[in-house]
């Protein structure tokens, strides 16, 4: 594999156990044991992912709230210290520059975590727009290791090595804790639909991986009694897809708006000016022409990106992400279709190579939220 690819703190661990792939400029594990067993470990118990490849920036200064309210779509003033929210940054046309999770560390201090593929673009966009505000934007990507510990037993696993009570950190809240004696920050967030945490090992430069490796190994050891699995990007993708979450570059990009993507809940049009507000206000008034939907296959076949979606002899849209769902044991997809066809229960056809294959528009997430996901009945 190319020597130009970046490596995370855990590179030696991954290389010995996983099949590796390039993602966002990093050499990352795609699977260790296999996508399906890793996926099921997260749905049924607990799994751990190295997500150090993601981008991280700190925003500090007296007018951090004003700046972030201008550059992102969600209501940053409503975000309390040690809370996090999902949000978007848009361009002037309302197209999504990126989606991310923003955590408020203090009154004037925020941590933004964005997609690996957009690290340079996002940092430059933030830095450029920060100029009129008295804020500092600092790229801390290479100084923090980041893991996701996900699944119904994630809290029990992490608690064994944490020095503070993680039960007090509710969903979309965050806090400081030592993990296996190492300074860390955790947020009860994730990209799997399950309960779990994203763990930040602070002060862990790539050049000095020891503390990050220690925390990773301590989590694996703590999770052993629950059958924890190290999970690669393959399972990360199938898990987020089953949960109905967007993958930037596939399901959303600068040509799609949050309203088309069904992310209107993170667009607060009542806010003062923000980038993209005018375009999004107009689109909200006019109505969107296409919408993001979930598709489940009624026949054999796996929908893949760019496959066409048809209804009554007419091409009504296309698939943007698709996979085999390990929980449902059939093909599932995220697709964009014309708004008049975007109703739950609508039967459509996906053109799988040359064959029109029956599919149905369904509610997201794909799995039964009573049985799976953070809201499951215990």
């Amino acid at each position, binding site marked *: 594999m190319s020597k130009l690819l970046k490596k995370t703190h855990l590179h030696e661990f991954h290389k010995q156990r996983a*099949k590796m792939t390039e993602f966002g400029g990093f050499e990352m594990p*795609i*699977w260790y044991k*296999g*996508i*399906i067993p890793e996926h099921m470990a997260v749905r049924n118990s607990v799994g751990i992912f190295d997500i150090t490849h993601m981008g991280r920036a700190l925003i500090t200064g007296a007018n951090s709230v004003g700046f972030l309210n201008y550059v992102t779509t969600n209501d940053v003033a409503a975000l309390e210290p040690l809370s996090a929210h999902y949000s978007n940054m848009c361009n002037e046309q309302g197209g999504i520059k990126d989606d991310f999770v923003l955590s408020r560390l203090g009154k004037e201090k925020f941590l933004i975590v964005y997609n690996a593929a957009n690290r340079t673009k996002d940092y430059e966009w933030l830095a450029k727009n920060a100029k009129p505000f008295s804020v500092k934007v600092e790229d801390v990507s290479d100084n923090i290791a980041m893991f996701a510990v996900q699944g119904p037993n994630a809290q029990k696993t992490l608690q064994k090595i944490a020095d503070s009570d993680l039960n007090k950190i509710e969903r979309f809240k965050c806090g400081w804790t030592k993990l296996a004696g190492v300074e860390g920050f955790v947020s009860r967030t994730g990209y799997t639909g399950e309960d779990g945490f994203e763990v930040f090992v602070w002060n862990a430069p790539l050049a000095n991986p020891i503390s990050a490796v220690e925390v990773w190994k301590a989590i694996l050891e703590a999770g052993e009694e629950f059958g924890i699995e190290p999970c690669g990007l*393959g399972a990360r993708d*199938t898990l987020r897809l089953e949960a109905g979450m967007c993958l930037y570059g596939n399901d959303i990009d600068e040509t799609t708006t949050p309203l088309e993507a069904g992310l209107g809940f993170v667009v607060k049009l009542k806010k003062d000016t923000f980038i993209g507000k005018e375009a999004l206000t107009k689109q909200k008034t006019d109505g969107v022409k296409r919408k993001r939907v979930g598709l489940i296959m009624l026949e*054999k*076949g*796996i929908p*893949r990106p760019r496959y066409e979606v048809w209804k009554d002899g007419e091409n009504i849209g296309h698939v943007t992400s698709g*996979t*085999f769902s*390990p929980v449902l044991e059939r093909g599932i997809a995220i697709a964009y279709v014309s708004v008049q066809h975007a109703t739950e229960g609508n039967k459509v056809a996906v053109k799988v*190579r040359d064959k029109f294959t029956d599919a149905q528009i369904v509610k997201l997430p794909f799995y039964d939220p009573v049985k799976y996901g953070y809201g499951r009945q215990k």
Partner: protein
Amino acid sequence: MRVLDYEFPDKLYYSKEHEWVMVEGKEVAVGITDYAQKQLHEIVYVEVQKVGANVEQFQTMGTVESVKSVSDIFSPVSGKITKVNEELAESPELLNQDPYGKGWLARINLTNFSRDLKKLMTAKQYADYIKGMEE
């Protein structure tokens, strides 16, 4: 023979597209190699053309889908399909578990095997080909 992490039985012939051929008189059994199944990993669907279909050497005779990707299966020989492995519809994982046995794809009645054979490799040749790709 065993090369790197892969098993390539000596009695089979191999194609560059990672299919194998087992000669049994006028007929052959075909399938995908240990290398192919390990690259694809976790195979979840297999589709092969129906019995009676004519296939040409190195033309598509079916598709195999793993969680991550879809790949064409290229017939390693020319001929007519006489039997397909029905078990794969229910148990596609047989391709991963036993690629040279229970994971066979189809039986083909040969048109001109001596011609096809010139474009196939022995186990030793295929092993060298794989070694070259892995380096």
